[in-house]
């Protein structure tokens, strides 16, 4: 039974990792990454490593997604700022 559980968790991790790479939009990727963190938590628990599971969980469930989303937001704001500045410059020119 333990082997079945480990195999299931392993395959879930493999599938989630593939999905995390295949999803190209960073904000959507952050969602898949947090699910990857959850499946890794399960894998570590069935591999009898609750310490590592806890570590992965603490980091993967809220911290990493928040960092990625904040970076996405900042980058988008930069480009918005840029567009706005260009528009202003254009209006100033005409």
């Amino acid at each position, binding site marked *: 039974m333990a082997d079945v*559980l480990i195999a*299931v968790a392993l395959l879930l991790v493999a599938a989630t990792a593939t999905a995390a790479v295949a999803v190209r939009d960073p*904000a959507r990727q952050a969602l898949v990454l947090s*699910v990857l963190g959850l499946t890794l*938590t*399960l894998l570590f628990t069935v591999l009898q490593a609750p310490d590592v599971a806890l570590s992965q969980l603490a980091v993967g*469930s*809220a911290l990493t*997604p*928040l960092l990625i989303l904040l970076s996405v937001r900042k980058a988008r704001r930069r480009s918005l700022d840029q567009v706005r500045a260009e528009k202003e410059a254009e209006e100033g020119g005409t």
Partner: protein
Amino acid sequence: MNAWLVAAAVLMVAGLGPVLWCVATGPLRRRVAAQNTGTLLVCLVLLLLARGYARPPYTDVALVVALLGPVGTLVYARLLGPEMGDDPQQGPLTKAFAVIASAAVVLPLCVAEGPGRSLVKLLLIGAILVGGNLISSKALAGARPKEADDHG
């Protein structure tokens, strides 16, 4: 081999498989909702595993999922809210599933546990889990497009 581990394996395949599919495809709101359901399922699987392996300390991991899982979803609802404005809302089915699945897992565990400190901990985890899940579903449903906002 015991029934708890079988239940955990079934929940992993039948629960997390569809969750993964929904998280990777479809409109944004459905993806966040799927992630939310994912944390709930993982917490339940962890509770089953702790019982199945006869290792009470493993429930600490489930407690942390119950606490931090909804936080992640609330972060998504806050930061991705403007983007998923027009996506179709989730039906009441997701919420009903959350409550029924949690009850179906936590109550048998409580019966098997018998009275004591672990029972209190188990009930606490169950309450935090269901409460957090319902609140984050609510926050998700309330996330609106930026245009509808009254600021500026």
